[in-house]
């Protein structure tokens, strides 16, 4: 792809196709005296300036979309992760009942090998899919300023996600250690068993006594 086409595509994300084309034409004409670095630097700076202009023209709408979009992404991501955890618990239980050795079900022993990697994939894909859905929702709310809306949602997610992480760490430290930490809930095989009901297994490679 020619560099002008790429530049036009980048600017086309934040302005109309006609304006993007004429702006790239101007920058191409000026770049004859300044060089390629100047061209790309000003393509990106112009795109940034156009996005900022879009944002400050209607900050209330974008902040609302950012807040609601990030909340939506956060809730969706947690629901998806919970679904993944419970889904794998059910799969593990059924798998153990059919193929496993006789005796009680030992959760940490069930998920291992490629199933473990599938579990990790599901756990980490869930937030990505949730962010994608939230981005689609935000883009529909602000037609013509989709990229700006997406970036505002991403920034809000960063802020709220960091705040939520601090809150969870504080909660984990002060409230949940007695009954089993959040780490034990999400990644039970990584935690040293502490509670009386927990199977007494060593962490590597999960053999039970």
């Amino acid at each position, binding site marked *: 792809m020619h560099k*002008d086409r790429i530049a036009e595509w980048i600017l086309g994300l934040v302005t109309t196709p006609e304006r993007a084309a004429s*702006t790239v*034409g*101007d920058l*191409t*004409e000026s770049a*004859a005296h300044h060089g390629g670095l100047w061209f790309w630097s000003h393509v990106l700076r112009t795109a940034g*300036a156009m996005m900022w202009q879009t944002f400050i023209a209607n900050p209330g709408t974008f902040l609302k979309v950012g807040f609601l979009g990030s909340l939506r992404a956060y809730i969706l991501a947690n629901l998806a992760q919970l679904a993944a955890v419970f889904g794998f618990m059910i799969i593990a239980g059924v798998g153990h009942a059919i193929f496993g050795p006789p005796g009680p079900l030992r959760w940490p022993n069930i998920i291992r090998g490629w199933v473990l990697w599938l579990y990790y994939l599901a756990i980490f894909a869930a937030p990505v899919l949730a962010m994608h859905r939230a981005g689609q929702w935000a883009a529909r709310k602000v037609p013509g300023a989709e990229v700006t809306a997406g970036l505002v949602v991403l920034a809000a997610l960063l802020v709220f996600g960091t705040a939520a992480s601090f809150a969870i760490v504080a909660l984990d430290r002060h409230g949940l250690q007695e009954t089993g930490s959040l780490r034990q809930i999400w990644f039970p095989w990584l935690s040293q068993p502490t509670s009386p009901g927990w199977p007494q297994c060593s962490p590597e490679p999960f053999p039970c006594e």
Partner: protein
Amino acid sequence: MQQQVPALGEFEQIVLLAILRLGENAYGVTIREEIQARTDREPAPGALYTTLDRLEEKGLVSSHLGDPTPERGGRAKRFFEVTAIGVEAVSRAQRSFQRLLKGLKLPGVANA
């Protein structure tokens, strides 16, 4: 009903005056060069294009696309012209400056 003339920022006035000076040849590159030549300031393209978009939204300038040219990769120039309300807005801003300057003695400023 007469359209209200919006207030202008400093850079908006500079851009409007540059377009008026250039006449029919006012597009992104020449506007930047004119501003640079007359004010010794080199405006960033991003600042110029967002200002031009804002002025167009306010109805102070209008634009039309010219013919594609090879040195621009076959892309058309977007020519700008100041509308009647744009002329009124920049005239009003300049009259305000003149009234403020009147009677002042500033070094290097004529008619102070």
